[in-house]
């Protein structure tokens, strides 16, 4: 690691006050992404502000709302019995990610801000990476792009967004609670990340001095009919090749409301809204679930080594929907 200045913050205010716009500053929480990328020389902060003592550890579950503090560790949210029962998609997305060690370390905010696993981004010996070195090109375009995105990518970057938990948040219409120099604000989770476009180095709409304080979302009784299905090369401790977070409100056999989000296949957290719409009023069977799955991947743009992803993704969505349909909610 390159040398840096270490500071501790004990409140959001002190963390923001310690932020210096003129020196590359990083907030350190679980460290599972930041220290990893510092060791790989991909990120090079001059100041690191330890925010592990600033609070934001609350898990508040009421009849119709959920609030998860930014500093809650993945393992602690995953272990909530009531959450497992009421919104299984949320706890499954956490339980199926990473390893025991990393889930005990990583925070929820850090999870959604984790950087891509694109090997050309993570290995500085590759000179072409628009995300790491804007304007340098994208080695993944003509490289080994088996893991790369088929939705939401651009000619400048085809890196896959890696978080599972974010797919549950976007499916649940979560809100992000943020604080920074200019005060506190809330934004829809769907507005937190930005597609790569021509500036893949810009990944979120957060200002550099802004911190996530927590996530809030409405929870409704029907969300007990939800799940997270993750398809990967091995059964644990691996990122998704394709995944689906689905929740279904079913009334008299017909779909009243559907939520579908896709992991492992897109450049940002990905909500398949057109696929959701196609299910409304339909009975859940092979045909309707397959139709929704087809719509979800209608605009997929595969590359040389990830041409399998639209098919795998469609099968993942269809299977997740059929499994959710069969649940006793």
């Amino acid at each position, binding site marked *: *690691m*390159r*040398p*840096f*200045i*270490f500071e*501790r913050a004990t409140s959001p205010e002190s963390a923001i006050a310690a932020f210096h716009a003129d020196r590359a500053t990083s907030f*350190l929480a*679980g*460290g*599972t992404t930041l*220290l*990893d990328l510092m*060791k*790989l020389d991909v990120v090079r902060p001059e100041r*690191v502000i*330890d925010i*592990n003592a600033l609070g934001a550890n609350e898990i508040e579950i009421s009849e119709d709302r959920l609030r998860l503090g930014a500093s809650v*560790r993945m*393992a602690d949210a995953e272990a909530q019995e009531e959450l497992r029962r009421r919104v299984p998609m949320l706890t499954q997305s956490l339980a199926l990610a*990473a*390893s*025991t*060690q*990393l889930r*005990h*370390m990583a925070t929820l905010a850090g999870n959604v801000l984790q950087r891509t696993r694109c090997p050309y981004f993570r290995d500085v010996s590759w000179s072409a990476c628009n995300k790491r070195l804007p304007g340098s090109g994208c080695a993944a375009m003509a490289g080994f792009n088996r893991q790369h995105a088929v939705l939401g990518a651009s000619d400048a970057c085809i890196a896959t967004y890696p978080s599972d938990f974010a797919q549950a948040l976007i499916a649940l219409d979560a809100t992000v609670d943020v604080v920074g120099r200019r005060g506190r604000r809330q934004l829809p989770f769907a507005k937190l990340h930005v597609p790569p476009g021509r500036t893949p180095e810009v990944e979120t709409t957060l200002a550099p001095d802004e911190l996530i304080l927590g996530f809030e979302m409405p929870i409704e009784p029907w969300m007990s009919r939800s799940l997270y299905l993750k398809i990967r090369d091995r059964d*644990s*401790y691996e990122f998704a090749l394709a995944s689906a977070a689905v929740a279904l409100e079913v009334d008299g056999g017909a779909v009243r409301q559907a939520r579908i989000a896709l992991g492992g296949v897109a450049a940002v957290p990905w909500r398949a809204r057109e696929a959701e719409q196609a299910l409304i009023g339909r009975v859940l069977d092979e045909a309707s679930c397959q139709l929704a799955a087809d719509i979800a991947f209608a605009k997929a743009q595969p590359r040389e080594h990830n041409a399998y992803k639209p098919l795998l993704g469609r099968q993942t969505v269809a299977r997740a929907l059929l499994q959710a349909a069969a649940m006793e909610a």
Partner: protein
Amino acid sequence: MSAIHVTTKINGDVVDYVCEADETLLDVLRNRLGLTGAKEGCSTGDCGACSVTIDGRLTCSCLVLGAEADGREIGTIEGMAKGDELHPLQRKFLEHAALQCGICTPGILVAAKSLLEHNPKPTETEVRFGLAGNLCRCTGYDKIVRAVMDAAQEMRRA
């Protein structure tokens, strides 16, 4: 760079140390405190050879700064045996020959102890998932899983 003073508890003993900002907890344990049980494998949180507990939570010490340990309680493999008396997991690893080169063993023992504290009666699948963050390139895991299952059974009887 200015040195950072840290007060922590390691395996029950109060320990003070001074470290640089860019030293990990693993660096401090091994290079400053002589606790060389935790190993550096990948150094990026993938292999689990550096596993310790911080405030009872299983953690990769390679992804924690030494400075972050201030006021926390660290548990390492050195605290696992009670004097000459091995922990049941350590004994079962010997009985089952659940190690070859041994580099991953301290991390796996710390992780297995943490696993059994959370789940005293794990299924084989739960052991395999629970230890997924600890890579072993020698054994193929079979004897490791058997040793953990056997130790769990013995610990339940005790």
